[in-house]
């Protein structure tokens, strides 16, 4: 690490998260100024984008090589009042909450109180959504049957492809003109709407060029007063780069990185799309620039390393935008899910691992930053050395990179109808979601609480936590004479809630399509320009909406317990079991013991239990897959929880697997905490029994004590463990390598463990920043394996 990098990294780690009113003020001023003008919505959004980029503070940190910040300084976070507006109470929570607080100073509070909150209350997109969804949607949402992603953030969840490394903004503007001049364009019934959209894209492209030029201007000014000759030269060089990109296609390694970074800032300034935008297949995109630089002598390996490290730090300066309402209290993850993909296959199907892949692994190891997250794509062609190198980073307990199965991802995307080339150019983003990079809008719409649906089924449509009827009348389960009958009732309730969720998705999708276009993001994702249609309105080549199932382990074990004890063994009657659940096992400890310890469980490679996982998977898949979304695409399923299994657990009463009320649900497709007794191979076998290829991603977390990674021999064994899982079409696996003692000590002395990073779900987070429940859960799992 050079001194420069060390300094920038320290600065990033030390910077304190705070709320910056800058963007909110600019947006409010702008909206107030255009109310009397008769502009189309895309034009308003594009001019708003231009207004922000023209007026926001240009921040250049000392010693930086890659420039540009979303806020006025590192970790100064903007808000997006047009999406959701922070009330004074929200700001108070953000300022005071224990985990990942965002400091809000007096001046900022005053600005929100006087200027921002009053203007946007009742006008924000969130208000619009809440006013348009149905009452049954609201009831299910409040009961914790599902969450809604687009309530506080814009649809995003997309990843840049290779286009920007070949085309500058001016080239994209040429493309826009070509479309406008196409013969027959004017005859298109939608031509005037398309024209507005395309004009909005053009304004956005120019806005980014101007933004870069403002950076160039500031850099030149800094150069004038700079004392060090070396830095002066650097500043002028950087100014030159900012005058070239993003207007034109990049010519060098440095330009390529700076170009991407401007695009990144553009996307996350325009709106706050889920999850943070990211460069995707970075080793592939940058490799030609690296090769050329080394060949013509303009780049050295060390310089490339330094540039990459500076690039890495930029991501870490940008925490996830803070939420409002209850989620401000609950959702306290720092990371914004940038997931850099390494390895995989090229579009011709050959192995994509190159020299830069290994260099990037070095960067990840040295930087040890939360953001950007990283993953490796392992295909059957990937060399073992690639996996060994990665495992040697994973074993340091930092939770990154995680492992993804390229061959599965390609199959998943192909089965959704994508072209082979687009599938091979794809990867995973966010936690684990498969997507075609640069060509797809894949919108995660919300988590879906599978065990809650079973709870409602067992109470004949009523949510026992509130006593409210939120489901259907599917019969008193005490009268069910067979397990099949229970499953039929469950299927009816499941379909009922999925219908509500999908109707809600489509209402919300329409709101975004009509009211909240993203002309800048639309420039980047194909084929929005040629279609003359916004990313939020179905302009992308592929449009997918996902519903993410949560609690597979919990629901599987609960159903298995019912099948085993009520119907097969007849140890307890249905009503007896339900009484135990409703009393949270008080006075039913013997039964609970039986349920927890003497019931077949998912995760042990026993068909009797795993069959229920398959059953639930098939029902969930059938309910969701192929249903139309609002923008001409389809709904599909994912199985991943991020941290939602904790929230969903807190609204779900005791379950038949012996889980106490309000405790976390199982995570991803992992077994219930502690239910797997036969080690990792059995877990992988169980997890592979569901058909990953028909999902857009599954998440499997394996917490192992460090000794599993000690020495070459162990590394080879872990590598074959991964290969075996991938041979069974597993989608993703990640390892949390920590000892329980370390974690317990960290809980006692958080001040000594500020940099302790653990894998939470599909991402890593500071252990200190996790809620106590989540901390305890991670400790529990660690113990489970360290014996």
């Amino acid at each position: 690490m050079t001194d420069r990098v060390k300094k920038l990294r320290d600065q990033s780690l030390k910077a304190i998260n705070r709320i910056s009113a800058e963007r909110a003020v600019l947006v409010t001023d702008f909206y107030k100024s255009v109310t009397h003008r008769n502009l189309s919505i895309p034009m308003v959004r594009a001019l708003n984008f231009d207004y922000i980029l023209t007026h926001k503070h240009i921040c250049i940190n000392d010693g930086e090589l890659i420039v540009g910040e979303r806020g006025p300084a590192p970790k100064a976070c903007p808000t997006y009042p047009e999406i959701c507006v922070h009330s004074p109470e929200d700001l108070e929570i953000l300022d005071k909450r224990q985990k990942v607080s965002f400091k809000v100073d007096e001046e900022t509070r005053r600005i929100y109180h006087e200027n921002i909150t009053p203007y946007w209350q009742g006008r924000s997109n969130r208000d619009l959504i809440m006013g348009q969804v149905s009452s049954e949607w609201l009831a299910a949402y409040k009961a914790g049957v599902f969450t809604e992603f687009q309530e506080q953030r814009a649809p995003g969840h997309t990843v840049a492809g290779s286009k920007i490394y070949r085309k500058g903004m001016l080239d994209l503007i040429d493309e826009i003109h070509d479309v406008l001049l196409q013969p027959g364009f004017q005859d298109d019934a939608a031509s005037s709407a398309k024209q507005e959209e395309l004009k909005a894209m053009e304004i956005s492209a120019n806005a980014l060029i101007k933004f870069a030029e403002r950076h160039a201007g500031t850099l030149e000014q800094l150069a004038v007063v700079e004392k060090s000759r070396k830095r002066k030269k650097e500043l002028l060089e950087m100014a030159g780069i900012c005058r070239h990109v993003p207007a034109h296609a990049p010519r060098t390694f440095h330009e390529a990185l700076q170009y991407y970074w401007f695009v990144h800032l553009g996307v996350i300034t325009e709106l706050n799309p889920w999850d943070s935008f990211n460069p995707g297949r970075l080793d592939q995109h940058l490799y030609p620039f690296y090769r050329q630089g080394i060949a013509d002598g303009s780049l050295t390996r060390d310089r490339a390393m330094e540039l990459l490290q500076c690039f890495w730090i930029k991501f870490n300066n940008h925490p996830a935008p803070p939420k409002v309402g209850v989620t401000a209290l609950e959702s306290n993850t720092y990371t914004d899910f940038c997931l850099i993909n390494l390895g995989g296959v090229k579009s011709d199907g050959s192995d994509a691992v190159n020299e830069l892949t290994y260099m990037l692994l070095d960067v990840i190891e040295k930087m040890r930053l939360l953001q950007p997250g990283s993953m490796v794509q392992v295909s059957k062609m990937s060399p073992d050395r690639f996996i060994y190198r990665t495992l040697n980073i994973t074993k340091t307990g930092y939770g990154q990179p995680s492992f993804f199965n390229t061959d599965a991802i390609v199959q998943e995307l192909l089965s959704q109808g994508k072209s082979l080339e687009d599938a091979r150019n794809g990867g995973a983003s966010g936690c684990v979601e498969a997507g075609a990079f640069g060509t797809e809008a894949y919108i995660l719409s919300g988590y879906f609480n599978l065990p809650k649906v079973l709870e409602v089924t067992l109470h004949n449509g009523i949510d026992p936590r509130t006593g409210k009827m939120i489901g259907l009348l599917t019969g008193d389960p005490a009268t069910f004479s067979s397990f099949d009958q229970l499953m039929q009732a469950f299927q009816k309730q499941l379909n009922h809630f999925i219908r509500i969720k999908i109707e809600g998705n489509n209402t919300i999708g329409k709101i975004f399509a009509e009211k909240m276009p993203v002309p800048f993001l639309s420039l980047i994702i194909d084929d929005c320009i040629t279609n003359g249609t916004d990313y939020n309105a179905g302009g992308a080549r592929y449009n997918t909406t996902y519903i993410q199932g949560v609690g597979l382990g919990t629901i599987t074990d609960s159903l298995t317990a019912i099948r085993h004890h009520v119907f097969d063994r007849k140890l307890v009657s249905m009503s007896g079991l339900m009484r135990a659940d409703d009393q949270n096992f008080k006075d039913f400890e013997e039964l609970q013991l039986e349920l927890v310890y003497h019931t077949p469980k998912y995760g042990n490679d026993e068909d009797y239990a795993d069959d229920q996982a398959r059953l639930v998977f098939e029902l969930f898949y059938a309910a969701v897959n192929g249903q139309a979304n609002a923008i001409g695409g389809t709904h599909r399923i994912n199985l991943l929880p991020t941290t939602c299994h904790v929230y969903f657990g807190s609204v779900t009463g005791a379950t038949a697997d012996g889980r106490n009320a309000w405790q976390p649900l199982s995570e991803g497709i992992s077994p219930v905490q502690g239910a797997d007794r036969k080690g990792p191979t059995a877990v992988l076998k169980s997890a592979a029994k569901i058909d990953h290829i028909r999902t857009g991603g599954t998440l499997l977390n394996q917490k192992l004590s460090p000794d599993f990674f000690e020495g070459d021999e162990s590394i080879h064994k872990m590598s074959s463990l991964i290969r075996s899982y991938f041979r069974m079409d597993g989608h993703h696996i990640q390892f949390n390598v920590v000892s329980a003692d370390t974690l317990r000590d960290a809980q006692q002395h958080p001040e000594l463990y500020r940099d302790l990073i653990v894998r939470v779900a599909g991402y890593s987070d500071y252990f200190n920043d996790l809620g106590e429940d989540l901390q305890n859960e991670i400790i529990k799992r660690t113990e489970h394996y360290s014996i």
Partner: protein
Amino acid sequence: MVIRGLIFDIRRFTVHDGPGIRTTVFFKGCPLTCWWCHNPESQDFKSERSIKNLVLSGTKFQHSETTGNFMTVDEVMAEVQKDEIFYEESGGGVTFSGGEPMMQEPFLHALLQASKTLGWHTAVDTSGYATHKAMEHTAPLVDLFLYDVKLMNDELHRKYTGVSNKPILENLEFLYRSGKNITLRFPVIPGITDTYDNIQQIKTLIIRLQSQRPVPMAHGSPLSIHLLPYHTIARDKYRRFCKTNQLEGVHDLKQEALAGLKQEFEEMGLTVKIGG
């Protein structure tokens, strides 16, 4: 007649009992009574009850469990077969351990035969205390022997394990001469097996073995040694099974002592691993 064997555990993803990812089948019953036995539940050739603590929201419940079940070859193989894909990817296989698997030689033989039919790598973890005939019968089906060497002095061997080491050493020479791959396992028990005399005698044994089957340099030695440090971990097990732990009070071994021992054996050209 279907033969059955008394098995007390089948563990998957064992990574210390031979190459690759393996499944280890634990046979119940052992003719030895080593003071340091880390698997006290494996000694008696009968199923037994033990008390296990189950925890529910912080409260402990006592539960009695059975250890040891009579299983058929098919039943054992069904369980072992579950991880076949992992053996293939990692070059692993199945390990038969105990207790003493040679004590149920016909059953062991049948399992080895079944495993070989499926093409798996096989390992047998043995004290070596078996008849020559049994050894001769089994050996062709075994790819790797994990073979205990404990005490070279027969009197001490009798004292601490309950049996003479004579057949053990004879079987070892026989296996080595017939070209088998052997990993010696040496339990390093403070004050009992780690004495100067015992270690010197083990070295002498190794030199004698090596002289009987010289190996071309390029191939490395087919003989390796694992040093198994004494762990107090087994104490809890003794309590659960209500057995007397004669080593109560003996402490875990010092890391430096082990490292020194490792070096001594390495200087003899052996591959040495600590633990395993």
